[in-house]
């Protein structure tokens, strides 16, 4: 919110510097996002009296002798058409800074420093300035919009700095207002806070006016939608003379970014900024039926707003109607059919409170917004609504642009605009803060905030002004006290009255961290990806139409289609991450992510979906393989103290012969495999990639497995090597199982060689295993081991029809 210092000074005697005021506001909860110095770029410009002015022959220039008071008299060449002797103009002395303008004399191109110069052989010591060169326009200072010199008043003191004279010594505070303080979305609202923090009184804006006996007979206001409009005030003004506003009002509006339109319209804008109350002025001659009706729009009803846009309305939009038709989109914008024109002679002023949520929703739904709708969306208090109408009528008189009739119609649901009594315990107020604020300080602070405090023992009685709807109970009072008393009074303590609690990670949190750390130790980096993904990601995986992953939760209002589904698999984001890395020249790496996938129980959601913790690991590079990724699966298994087994499988996005499903103690927990060539090509991958996805939720049942020490074997282990010639279709896992199940003393089976060659015959391979037998009760002798070996060979022959390599 923009608040010019000069405007604030209307209400408060501010005797601190702008910088100090910024700090004071900051300390009591109003962060000044920017402190703008109005004439910041202008320096060294003083009032100059042109004493002599002679045209320079054959040019458009004039040679002037300019009296700059104590600074001296200077010869200046000037090309403006309105330069003349006897008038006063701003003169930029040598060394001054002013705005440089383009050839059009209007467009500002930067700041320039005035130097001594020579024009057509004539020395020029300075420059006479236009309004634009000083950063002014017609609204900021009358005459400043002229494409020539800015003429200063005849009584301006020669040699004096022009900045105070032109209002350029002003400051504008751009203040951030928190959502609980809509009462501070105005200059006067801020002024109340400034007064409180500076310990000064705050003057109320002038609200007096005189009603004439003139009445608009039979005029009625009917509020049908009282739930959306708790207060509506209409006042009729006549003998209106539409004209430009006075310079002071135009300047103030310009400082807060509003262009002047005409006196009546400017009054409504002025009040919006001064008091935070949106107002509207209808040309009464266009209002039909001598009535105002506030109602919900009919479905399909149409209105054309002031900016000539047509809207088709529905029952959720609030409209202001005359006796026949909508004349304004309530709180958002007036209708074109009743706008103030230069010819307007009668005005119906509106000051109303519309419910914030309705205005906000209508504004969003219709895509139509204004300063008024923005203000309503923040919140407007009825206290201000009442005050604003008085202020508008006062300004009508002050600007002498109309007569105030005695037709004043106010329809309200009966909300009080008087202060509300509130009683709180001083002890409780201090209890929130943890310090004892002296009673005198509490009284001083709350008096400054217009709460009229009285302390009687522990009881603090307050009269809360109606513009402070945020004040509800003792913590609110505590906040008011401490923000003015100062947060530096808060003394750090460490919960002396609290019970001792045991904190720390739970088993799930510890186990997940353990898995992550183990993967890091195995060379993988943790990545974090968005929880939402794109429908095209499901297509990327070539998932069939009925795949469960396609049953994903949709965002109603996604940023874009690529972020529109809650992910049902972590793989697509992993594939994109791998592809991105390769594009940036990283051609090997390991990435993992432990995050949630979202499985809806119903769509659209009516109950919490299942958020399943899932682990995705992706590896890529020439040295990676199915088996290196399988190694990372084994890292997870080892971390949890469980055994994984693998069975060949297929996935639509993985290599048909390099994919396996992973089982933990017999339960399927996920899969791994090589990314298919189709997808690698589609993503422009330069090197092979492998991915794995494991359901960590299932794995969590093995978290916290007891760690039990197994004594080292008492007796020497025996080791035997076997080489088999087998059909290519036989898997290592089948042989391993065949070996293990044949003998209970087998504690380890390791494949150590695989060989294929013509001498073995087609479709054959040789596989060599090393098998360890660990004795339990007694030392093995060679006959016993021979017995084990025989059992193993017999089992393999029976189950897999394989024999030892000859």
């Amino acid at each position, binding site marked *: 919110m923009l608040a010019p210092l000069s405007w604030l000074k209307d209400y408060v005697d501010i005797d601190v510097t702008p910088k100090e005021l910024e700090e004071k506001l900051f300390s009591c*909860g109003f962060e000044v996002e920017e402190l703008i110095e109005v004439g910041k770029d202008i320096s060294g410009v003083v009032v100059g009296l042109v004493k002599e002015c002679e045209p320079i022959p054959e040019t458009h220039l004039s040679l002037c002798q300019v009296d700059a008071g104590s600074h001296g008299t200077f010869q200046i060449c000037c090309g403006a058409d309105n330069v003349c002797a006897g008038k006063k103009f701003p003169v930029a002395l040598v060394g001054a800074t002013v705005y440089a303008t383009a050839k059009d004399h209007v467009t500002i191109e930067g700041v320039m420093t005035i130097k001594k110069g020579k024009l057509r052989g004539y020395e020029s010591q300075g420059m006479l300035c236009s309004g634009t060169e000083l950063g002014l326009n017609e609204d900021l200072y009358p005459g400043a919009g002229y494409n020539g010199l800015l003429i200063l008043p005849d009584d301006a003191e020669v040699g004096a700095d022009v900045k105070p004279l032109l209002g350029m010594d002003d400051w504008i505070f751009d203040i951030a207002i928190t*959502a*609980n303080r809509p009462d501070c979305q105005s200059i006067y609202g801020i002024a109340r806070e400034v007064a409180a923090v500076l310990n000064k009184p705050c003057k109320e804006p002038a609200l007096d006016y005189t009603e004439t006996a003139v009445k608009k007979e039979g005029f009625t206001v009917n509020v049908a939608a009282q739930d959306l409009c708790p207060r509506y005030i209409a006042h009729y003004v006549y003998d209106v003379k539409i004209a430009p506003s006075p310079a002071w009002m135009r300047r103030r509006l310009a400082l807060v970014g509003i262009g002047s339109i005409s006196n009546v319209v400017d009054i409504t804008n002025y009040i919006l900024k001064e008091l935070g109350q949106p107002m509207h002025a209808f040309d009464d001659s266009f209002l039909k039926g001598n009535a105002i009706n506030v109602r919900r729009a009919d479905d399909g009803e149409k209105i054309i707003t002031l900016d000539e846009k047509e809207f088709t309305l529905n029952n959720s939009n609030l409209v202001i109607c005359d006796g026949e038709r909508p004349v304004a989109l309530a709180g958002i914008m007036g209708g074109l059919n009743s706008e103030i024109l230069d010819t307007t002679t009668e005005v119906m002023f509106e000051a109303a409170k519309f419910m914030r949520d309705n205005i906000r929703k209508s504004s969003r739904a219709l895509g139509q917004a204004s300063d008024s709708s923005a203000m309503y969306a923040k919140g407007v208090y009825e206290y201000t609504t009442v005050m604003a109408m008085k202020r508008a009528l006062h300004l009508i008189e002050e600007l002498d642009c109309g007569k105030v009739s005695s037709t004043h119609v106010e329809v309200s649901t009966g909300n009080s605009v008087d202060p509300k009594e509130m009683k709180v315990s001083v002890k409780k107020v201090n209890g929130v803060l943890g310090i004892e604020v002296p009673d005198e300080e509490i009284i001083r602070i709350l008096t400054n905030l217009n709460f009229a405090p009285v302390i009687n023992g522990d009881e603090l009685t307050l009269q809360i002004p109606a513009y402070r709807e945020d004040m509800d109970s003792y913590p609110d009072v505590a906040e008011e006290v401490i923000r003015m008393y100062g947060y530096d009074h808060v003394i*750090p303590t460490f919960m002396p009255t609290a019970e001792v609690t045991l904190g720390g990670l739970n088993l799930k949190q510890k186990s997940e961290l353990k898995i992550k750390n183990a993967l*890091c130790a195995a060379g993988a980096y943790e990545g974090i990806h968005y*929880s939402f993904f794109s429908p095209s990601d499901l297509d990327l995986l070539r998932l069939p139409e009925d795949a469960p992953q396609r049953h994903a939760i949709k965002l109603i209002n996604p*940023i874009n289609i690529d972020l529109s589904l809650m992910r049902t698999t972590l793989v697509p984001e992993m594939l994109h*991450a791998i592809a991105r890395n390769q594009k940036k020249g990283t051609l090997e790496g390991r990435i993992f992510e432990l995050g949630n996938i979202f499985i809806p129980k119903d769509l659209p959601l009516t109950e919490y979906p299942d*958020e399943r913790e899932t682990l995705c690991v992706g590896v890529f590079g020439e040295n990676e393989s199915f088996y290196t990724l399988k190694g990372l699966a084994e890292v997870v298994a080892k971390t949890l103290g469980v055994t994984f087994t693998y069975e060949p499988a297929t996935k639509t996005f993985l290599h048909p012969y390099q994919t396996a499903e992973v089982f933990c103690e017999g339960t399927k927990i996920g899969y791994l495999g090589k990314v298919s060539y189709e997808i690698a090509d589609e993503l422009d991958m330069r090197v092979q990639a492998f991915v794995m996805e494991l359901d960590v939720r299932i794995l969590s049942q093995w978290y916290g497995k007891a760690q039990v020490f197994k004594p080292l074997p008492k007796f020497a282990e025996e080791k035997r090597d076997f080489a088999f010639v087998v059909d290519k279709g036989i898997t290592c896992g089948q042989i391993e199982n065949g070996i293990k199940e044949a003998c209970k003393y087998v504690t380890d089976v390791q494949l150590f060689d695989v060989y294929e060659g013509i001498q073995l015959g087609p479709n054959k391979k040789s596989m060599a295993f090393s098998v360890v037998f660990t004795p339990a009760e007694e030392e093995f002798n060679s006959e016993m081991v021979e017995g084990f070996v025989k059992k193993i060979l017999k089992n393999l022959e029976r189950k897999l029809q394989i024999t030892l390599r000859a």
Partner: protein
Amino acid sequence: MKEKLQKIRERAIAEIESSDGLEKLGEVRNTILGKKGELTAVLKGMKDVPPEDRPKVGQWVNETREAIETILAEQTKKLEAEALRLRYESEKIDVTMPAVKPAKGNLHPITQVRNQLTDIFASMGFEIYEGTEIETDYYNFTALNTPQDHPARDMQDTFYLSPEFLLRTQTSAGQIHVMEAKKPPIKIISPGKVFRSDDDATHSPMFTQMEGLVVDKGITLCDLKGMLDEFVKKIFGENVTTRLRPSYFPFTEPSVEVDVSCFQCGGKGCKLCKGTGWIEVLGAGVVNNKVLEGCGVDTNVYSGFAFGIGIERIAMLKYGINNIKLLFESDLRVLNQIDD
């Protein structure tokens, strides 16, 4: 005989001293001291020596053998040392050549910061509660004193999944679940992903927050300040101090923004703190009675404080990461830089 031995001795010494390798030395030992060696031959010839001379000759032979062996041992040692030296020399390497890197990854910077925070708060007696990413309107807003038409709803752009369900915009949603499930004393932190419809250079539609909540008897604003002072010292350094300033959150009253003294310039003012000497790090406040009462907590007995920390912000401040988007792209050139 004596001359013969003398000759053997002289020749042996000459050969030993001139031998240039252990192999050669072995040959010398063999030709002289070996089974068929010259000295052995002398001993074998003892039977031809008159018996009375035998002790003397035996002594000469032994002296000769000892002398040769001594020299031999010396020379062996010398040559062994030389051989070792050569072996070492032959294995000279360029120590500036690249290391064989062991496989080693690291946790995500967000996880690292999250772990640092959870460690600090766990040591203060906080448990860790992880809520769900998908929440209801009630837990994310209404129960946090932000009913449907509340102005604070405009503070955050929410992703909706259905009229009732949304992506949580704040980990504060977890507060309510905890208070519904557990009676005071409560000390929890709740880290997790949150979502807002913001997507520009400084905003990511997903980011990470950590909510903290304490509810117990007699908890005050001073306790909040005391705990935050400890926390910032542990995370940013011993000399860092905090500053509270008024702010607004619907679920706390009073609400504060917490700034820390700039840990880069010590408060003098620098680029990091934009010349103010202070850096905004978190929002906090005394838990709003309406929130406590909504969860059935007796506000005549209990009070509490809550705080919310943006984990990316801490990570970016701590490690100088300049763009939040980098955190979610899994660019290994980014991920491998921070191992704190």
